[in-house]
Protein backbone atom coordinates (compact mmCIF):
# COMPACT_ATOMS: atom_id res chain seq x y z
CA UNK A 1 0.00 0.00 0.00
CA UNK A 2 1.37 3.34 -1.04
CA UNK A 3 1.52 6.10 1.52
CA UNK A 4 0.31 9.48 0.27
CA UNK A 5 2.10 12.41 1.89
CA UNK A 6 1.27 16.05 1.19
CA UNK A 7 3.92 18.74 1.61
CA UNK A 8 1.99 21.89 2.40
CA UNK A 9 2.22 25.25 4.19
CA UNK A 10 -0.39 27.80 3.26
CA UNK A 11 2.21 30.51 2.87
CA UNK A 12 4.38 30.65 -0.24
CA UNK A 13 8.15 30.69 -0.35
CA UNK A 14 8.72 28.72 2.84
CA UNK A 15 10.39 25.75 1.14
CA UNK A 16 7.68 23.31 0.07
CA UNK A 17 9.23 22.39 -3.26
CA UNK A 18 12.77 22.31 -1.84
CA UNK A 19 11.50 20.00 0.91
CA UNK A 20 9.47 17.81 -1.48
CA UNK A 21 12.51 17.34 -3.70
CA UNK A 22 14.81 16.60 -0.76
CA UNK A 23 12.47 14.26 1.12
CA UNK A 24 11.36 12.45 -2.05
CA UNK A 25 14.98 11.86 -2.98
CA UNK A 26 15.76 10.74 0.57
CA UNK A 27 12.93 8.20 0.58
CA UNK A 28 14.16 6.81 -2.74
CA UNK A 29 17.75 6.65 -1.47
CA UNK A 30 16.43 4.43 1.31
CA UNK A 31 15.08 2.02 -1.29
CA UNK A 32 11.46 3.14 -1.40
CA UNK A 33 9.90 3.51 -4.82
CA UNK A 34 8.82 7.15 -4.71
CA UNK A 35 6.99 9.57 -6.97
CA UNK A 36 6.81 13.33 -6.38
CA UNK A 37 3.78 15.05 -7.90
CA UNK A 38 3.83 18.78 -8.62
CA UNK A 39 0.32 20.07 -7.84
CA UNK A 40 1.19 23.68 -8.63
CA UNK A 41 -0.77 23.89 -11.88
CA UNK A 42 0.28 26.90 -13.93
CA UNK A 43 3.43 27.50 -11.91
CA UNK A 44 5.48 24.36 -12.46
CA UNK A 45 8.74 24.45 -10.50
CA UNK A 46 9.51 21.03 -9.08
CA UNK A 47 11.08 20.09 -12.44
CA UNK A 48 13.60 22.94 -12.09
CA UNK A 49 14.50 22.04 -8.51
CA UNK A 50 14.95 18.41 -9.56
CA UNK A 51 16.95 19.40 -12.64
CA UNK A 52 14.69 17.65 -15.15
CA UNK A 53 13.01 20.70 -16.71
CA UNK A 54 14.16 19.83 -20.22
CA UNK A 55 12.82 16.30 -20.04
CA UNK A 56 9.16 17.24 -19.50
CA UNK A 57 7.03 15.95 -22.36
CA UNK A 58 3.61 15.33 -20.87
CA UNK A 59 2.21 16.48 -17.52
CA UNK A 60 -0.27 15.71 -14.72
CA UNK A 61 -3.21 17.32 -16.56
CA UNK A 62 -2.45 15.35 -19.74
CA UNK A 63 -2.71 12.14 -17.70
CA UNK A 64 -5.97 13.22 -16.08
CA UNK A 65 -7.45 14.10 -19.47
CA UNK A 66 -6.30 10.79 -20.96
CA UNK A 67 -3.99 12.50 -23.47
CA UNK A 68 -1.01 10.51 -22.19
CA UNK A 69 -0.49 7.56 -19.89
CA UNK A 70 1.58 7.49 -16.73
CA UNK A 71 4.40 5.55 -18.31
CA UNK A 72 4.88 8.24 -20.96
CA UNK A 73 4.59 11.05 -18.43
CA UNK A 74 6.59 10.02 -15.38
CA UNK A 75 10.16 11.31 -15.49
CA UNK A 76 12.69 8.89 -14.06
CA UNK A 77 15.33 10.67 -12.00
CA UNK A 78 18.81 10.22 -13.46
CA UNK A 79 20.73 10.40 -10.19
CA UNK A 80 18.57 8.40 -7.82
CA UNK A 81 17.09 4.96 -8.42
CA UNK A 82 13.43 4.39 -7.47
CA UNK A 83 12.60 8.08 -7.95
CA UNK A 84 10.07 9.54 -10.40
CA UNK A 85 8.61 12.99 -10.99
CA UNK A 86 5.14 13.82 -12.26
CA UNK A 87 5.36 17.43 -13.49
CA UNK A 88 2.60 20.01 -13.20
CA UNK A 89 0.90 21.43 -16.22
CA UNK A 90 1.58 25.00 -17.30
CA UNK A 91 -2.07 25.49 -18.28
CA UNK A 92 -3.82 28.57 -16.99
CA UNK A 93 -7.05 26.66 -16.51
CA UNK A 94 -7.48 26.63 -12.76
CA UNK A 95 -10.02 23.83 -12.81
CA UNK A 96 -7.78 21.41 -14.68
CA UNK A 97 -7.57 19.12 -11.65
CA UNK A 98 -10.76 17.28 -10.80
CA UNK A 99 -11.19 15.18 -7.67
CA UNK A 100 -12.12 12.14 -9.76
CA UNK A 101 -9.16 12.63 -12.10
CA UNK A 102 -6.66 13.05 -9.27
CA UNK A 103 -8.07 10.03 -7.46
CA UNK A 104 -7.76 7.89 -10.58
CA UNK A 105 -4.10 8.86 -11.07
CA UNK A 106 -3.29 8.34 -7.38
CA UNK A 107 -4.93 4.90 -7.42
CA UNK A 108 -2.90 3.89 -10.44
CA UNK A 109 0.34 5.16 -8.86
CA UNK A 110 -0.49 3.43 -5.58
CA UNK A 111 -0.25 0.02 -7.27
CA UNK A 112 3.37 0.66 -8.12
CA UNK A 113 4.86 3.00 -5.56
CA UNK A 114 5.68 2.95 -1.83
CA UNK A 115 5.44 6.71 -1.39
CA UNK A 116 3.47 9.35 -3.26
CA UNK A 117 4.64 12.83 -2.30
CA UNK A 118 2.27 15.67 -3.22
CA UNK A 119 4.01 19.04 -3.54
CA UNK A 120 1.22 21.52 -2.80
CA UNK A 121 0.89 25.01 -4.25
CA UNK A 122 0.74 27.91 -1.80
CA UNK A 123 -2.59 29.31 -0.65
CA UNK A 124 -5.86 27.63 0.23
CA UNK A 125 -7.38 27.58 -3.25
CA UNK A 126 -8.54 24.53 -5.19
CA UNK A 127 -5.01 23.36 -6.08
CA UNK A 128 -3.85 23.27 -2.46
CA UNK A 129 -7.08 21.58 -1.37
CA UNK A 130 -6.63 18.95 -4.07
CA UNK A 131 -3.04 18.27 -3.00
CA UNK A 132 -4.06 17.56 0.59
CA UNK A 133 -7.43 15.88 -0.02
CA UNK A 134 -6.22 12.29 -0.44
CA UNK A 135 -3.28 12.48 1.99
CA UNK A 136 -2.52 9.92 4.71
CA UNK A 137 0.16 12.13 6.24
CA UNK A 138 1.02 15.81 5.97
CA UNK A 139 4.32 17.62 6.26
CA UNK A 140 3.57 21.21 7.22
CA UNK A 141 6.53 23.34 6.17
CA UNK A 142 6.85 26.38 8.41
CA UNK A 143 9.33 29.24 8.81
CA UNK A 144 9.91 30.63 12.32
CA UNK A 145 8.03 33.79 11.42
CA UNK A 146 4.55 35.06 12.35
CA UNK A 147 2.73 34.90 9.00
CA UNK A 148 4.07 31.45 8.19
CA UNK A 149 3.07 30.02 11.59
CA UNK A 150 -0.40 31.48 11.36
CA UNK A 151 -0.91 30.11 7.83
CA UNK A 152 0.34 26.70 8.94
CA UNK A 153 -2.32 26.66 11.64
CA UNK A 154 -4.88 27.52 9.00
CA UNK A 155 -3.73 24.58 6.89
CA UNK A 156 -3.88 22.28 9.93
CA UNK A 157 -7.54 23.28 10.21
CA UNK A 158 -8.08 22.33 6.56
CA UNK A 159 -6.34 18.97 7.03
CA UNK A 160 -8.71 18.08 9.84
CA UNK A 161 -11.90 19.23 8.11
CA UNK A 162 -11.54 19.33 4.32
CA UNK A 163 -9.62 16.12 3.61
CA UNK A 164 -10.93 12.76 2.46
CA UNK A 165 -10.07 11.25 5.82
CA UNK A 166 -12.06 13.95 7.60
CA UNK A 167 -15.04 13.71 5.28
CA UNK A 168 -15.23 9.93 5.45
CA UNK A 169 -14.66 9.81 9.20
CA UNK A 170 -11.44 7.79 8.88
CA UNK A 171 -8.38 8.13 11.13
CA UNK A 172 -7.09 11.70 10.99
CA UNK A 173 -4.19 12.69 8.73
CA UNK A 174 -0.91 12.31 10.58
CA UNK A 175 0.54 15.81 10.83
CA UNK A 176 4.26 16.60 10.96
CA UNK A 177 5.97 19.94 11.50
CA UNK A 178 9.00 20.73 9.35
CA UNK A 179 10.67 23.94 10.46
CA UNK A 180 12.81 25.45 7.70
CA UNK A 181 15.16 28.43 7.40
CA UNK A 182 15.98 28.12 11.08
CA UNK A 183 18.69 30.43 12.35
CA UNK A 184 20.00 29.48 15.84
CA UNK A 185 22.03 32.71 16.14
CA UNK A 186 18.93 34.84 15.77
CA UNK A 187 16.95 32.57 18.10
CA UNK A 188 19.65 32.99 20.74
CA UNK A 189 19.46 36.76 20.36
CA UNK A 190 15.70 36.67 20.81
CA UNK A 191 15.09 37.78 17.25
CA UNK A 192 13.48 34.59 15.98
CA UNK A 193 10.83 32.18 17.27
CA UNK A 194 12.47 29.05 18.63
CA UNK A 195 11.62 25.43 17.77
CA UNK A 196 9.88 25.15 21.14
CA UNK A 197 7.84 28.30 20.50
CA UNK A 198 6.53 27.05 17.16
CA UNK A 199 5.86 23.56 18.54
CA UNK A 200 3.93 25.05 21.43
CA UNK A 201 1.78 27.27 19.20
CA UNK A 202 0.95 24.65 16.56
CA UNK A 203 1.07 21.65 18.95
CA UNK A 204 2.01 19.03 16.37
CA UNK A 205 4.84 16.51 16.13
CA UNK A 206 8.23 17.87 15.08
CA UNK A 207 9.61 15.98 12.07
CA UNK A 208 12.64 18.08 11.28
CA UNK A 209 14.46 21.39 11.59
CA UNK A 210 16.34 22.61 8.52
CA UNK A 211 18.84 25.36 9.22
CA UNK A 212 19.00 28.45 7.03
CA UNK A 213 21.74 27.41 4.68
CA UNK A 214 23.62 28.59 1.63
CA UNK A 215 23.53 25.02 0.38
CA UNK A 216 19.82 25.35 -0.46
CA UNK A 217 20.26 28.11 -3.06
CA UNK A 218 23.35 26.41 -4.46
CA UNK A 219 21.36 23.20 -4.84
CA UNK A 220 18.43 24.85 -6.59
CA UNK A 221 20.80 26.81 -8.84
CA UNK A 222 22.20 23.54 -10.12
CA UNK A 223 18.94 21.56 -10.14
CA UNK A 224 20.07 19.09 -7.55
CA UNK A 225 18.02 18.24 -4.43
CA UNK A 226 19.91 19.61 -1.42
CA UNK A 227 19.78 16.23 0.34
CA UNK A 228 22.40 14.99 -2.14
CA UNK A 229 24.81 17.61 -0.76
CA UNK A 230 25.71 15.33 2.12
CA UNK A 231 28.39 17.59 3.54
CA UNK A 232 25.99 20.49 3.97
CA UNK A 233 24.05 21.21 7.17
CA UNK A 234 20.73 21.40 5.28
CA UNK A 235 21.45 18.14 3.45
CA UNK A 236 22.17 16.33 6.70
CA UNK A 237 19.11 17.83 8.37
CA UNK A 238 16.94 16.50 5.52
CA UNK A 239 18.56 13.06 5.82
CA UNK A 240 17.61 13.04 9.52
CA UNK A 241 14.10 14.18 8.59
CA UNK A 242 13.65 11.27 6.18
CA UNK A 243 14.86 8.80 8.82
CA UNK A 244 12.27 10.17 11.26
CA UNK A 245 9.56 9.97 8.61
CA UNK A 246 10.44 6.29 8.25
CA UNK A 247 10.00 5.84 11.98
CA UNK A 248 13.58 6.01 13.23
CA UNK A 249 14.50 7.92 16.36
CA UNK A 250 17.11 10.50 15.41
CA UNK A 251 18.32 13.34 17.65
CA UNK A 252 17.81 16.86 16.34
CA UNK A 253 20.89 18.67 15.09
CA UNK A 254 21.72 22.25 14.11
CA UNK A 255 19.50 23.73 16.83
CA UNK A 256 22.24 25.47 18.79
CA UNK A 257 24.76 28.08 17.82
CA UNK A 258 27.99 26.48 16.71
CA UNK A 259 30.74 27.53 19.07
CA UNK A 260 33.54 29.02 17.08
CA UNK A 261 37.04 27.92 17.99
CA UNK A 262 39.91 30.35 18.32
CA UNK A 263 41.24 29.59 14.84
CA UNK A 264 37.84 30.05 13.25
CA UNK A 265 37.44 33.33 15.04
CA UNK A 266 40.70 34.57 13.66
CA UNK A 267 40.48 33.22 10.16
CA UNK A 268 36.69 33.20 9.75
CA UNK A 269 34.67 30.37 8.30
Amino acid at each position, binding site marked *: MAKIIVVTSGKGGVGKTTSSAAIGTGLALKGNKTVIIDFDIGLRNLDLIMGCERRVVYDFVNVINGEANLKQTLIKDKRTDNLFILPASQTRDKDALTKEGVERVLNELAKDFDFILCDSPAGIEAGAMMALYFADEAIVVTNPEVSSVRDSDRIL*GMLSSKSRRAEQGLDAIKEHLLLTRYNPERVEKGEM*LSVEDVKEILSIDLLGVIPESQAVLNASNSGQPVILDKDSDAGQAYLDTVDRLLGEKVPFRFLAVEKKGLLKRIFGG
Partner: protein
Amino acid sequence: MSLLDYFRSSKKSTANTAKERLQIIVAHERRRRNSPDYLPQLERDILEVIRKYVDISPEDIAVSLEQRGNELSVLELNVTFPEDKR
Protein backbone atom coordinates in the same frame (compact mmCIF):
# COMPACT_ATOMS: atom_id res chain seq x y z
CA MET B 1 24.45 36.08 32.38
CA SER B 2 26.83 38.62 30.93
CA LEU B 3 26.61 42.33 31.51
CA LEU B 4 25.43 42.78 27.95
CA ASP B 5 22.53 40.37 28.47
CA TYR B 6 21.53 42.31 31.55
CA PHE B 7 20.99 45.46 29.53
CA ARG B 8 19.32 43.51 26.77
CA SER B 9 16.81 41.86 29.05
CA SER B 10 15.32 45.20 30.03
CA LYS B 11 13.68 45.21 26.61
CA LYS B 12 11.38 42.35 25.65
CA SER B 13 12.73 40.36 22.71
CA THR B 14 10.83 40.56 19.44
CA ALA B 15 10.63 36.76 19.36
CA ASN B 16 8.64 36.88 22.59
CA THR B 17 6.31 39.50 21.18
CA ALA B 18 5.82 37.32 18.11
CA LYS B 19 5.00 34.30 20.25
CA GLU B 20 2.45 36.15 22.36
CA ARG B 21 0.74 37.67 19.33
CA LEU B 22 0.60 34.29 17.60
CA GLN B 23 -0.81 32.51 20.63
CA ILE B 24 -3.67 34.99 20.81
CA ILE B 25 -4.55 35.08 17.13
CA VAL B 26 -4.18 31.33 16.64
CA ALA B 27 -6.42 30.59 19.62
CA HIS B 28 -8.94 33.09 18.30
CA GLU B 29 -8.96 31.60 14.82
CA ARG B 30 -9.21 28.05 16.12
CA ARG B 31 -12.26 28.96 18.19
CA ARG B 32 -13.81 30.49 15.11
CA ARG B 33 -13.03 27.42 13.00
CA ASN B 34 -14.84 25.17 15.38
CA SER B 35 -17.89 27.37 15.70
CA PRO B 36 -20.99 27.76 13.51
CA ASP B 37 -20.78 29.91 10.36
CA TYR B 38 -23.32 32.43 11.65
CA LEU B 39 -21.20 33.45 14.63
CA PRO B 40 -19.17 36.23 12.89
CA GLN B 41 -22.39 37.81 11.55
CA LEU B 42 -24.00 37.51 14.97
CA GLU B 43 -20.98 39.25 16.45
CA ARG B 44 -21.23 42.06 13.92
CA ASP B 45 -24.95 42.48 14.57
CA ILE B 46 -24.44 42.65 18.33
CA LEU B 47 -21.65 45.17 17.80
CA GLU B 48 -23.97 47.38 15.74
CA VAL B 49 -26.68 47.29 18.37
CA ILE B 50 -24.31 48.21 21.20
CA ARG B 51 -22.77 50.96 19.06
CA LYS B 52 -26.14 52.71 18.97
CA TYR B 53 -25.57 53.46 22.64
CA VAL B 54 -21.86 53.21 23.38
CA ASP B 55 -18.90 53.73 21.05
CA ILE B 56 -16.93 50.49 21.22
CA SER B 57 -14.53 48.96 18.73
CA PRO B 58 -14.67 45.44 17.25
CA GLU B 59 -11.91 44.20 19.51
CA ASP B 60 -13.96 45.08 22.61
CA ILE B 61 -16.45 42.37 21.83
CA ALA B 62 -16.02 38.60 21.97
CA VAL B 63 -18.67 36.05 21.16
CA SER B 64 -18.10 32.36 21.58
CA LEU B 65 -20.18 29.27 21.53
CA GLU B 66 -19.07 26.56 23.87
CA GLN B 67 -20.26 23.00 23.69
CA ARG B 68 -20.73 21.44 27.12
CA GLY B 69 -21.44 17.78 26.80
CA ASN B 70 -23.88 16.63 24.15
CA GLU B 71 -26.96 18.47 25.31
CA LEU B 72 -25.85 21.96 26.18
CA SER B 73 -24.29 24.83 24.22
CA VAL B 74 -23.48 28.10 25.93
CA LEU B 75 -23.29 31.35 24.00
CA GLU B 76 -20.87 33.62 25.77
CA LEU B 77 -20.82 37.32 25.09
CA ASN B 78 -18.08 39.55 26.46
CA VAL B 79 -18.19 43.27 25.91
CA THR B 80 -15.55 45.57 27.34
CA PHE B 81 -16.69 49.15 27.75
CA PRO B 82 -14.07 51.84 27.42
CA GLU B 83 -13.18 53.61 30.71
CA ASP B 84 -14.78 56.97 29.95
CA LYS B 85 -17.94 55.61 28.37
CA ARG B 86 -19.31 53.77 31.37
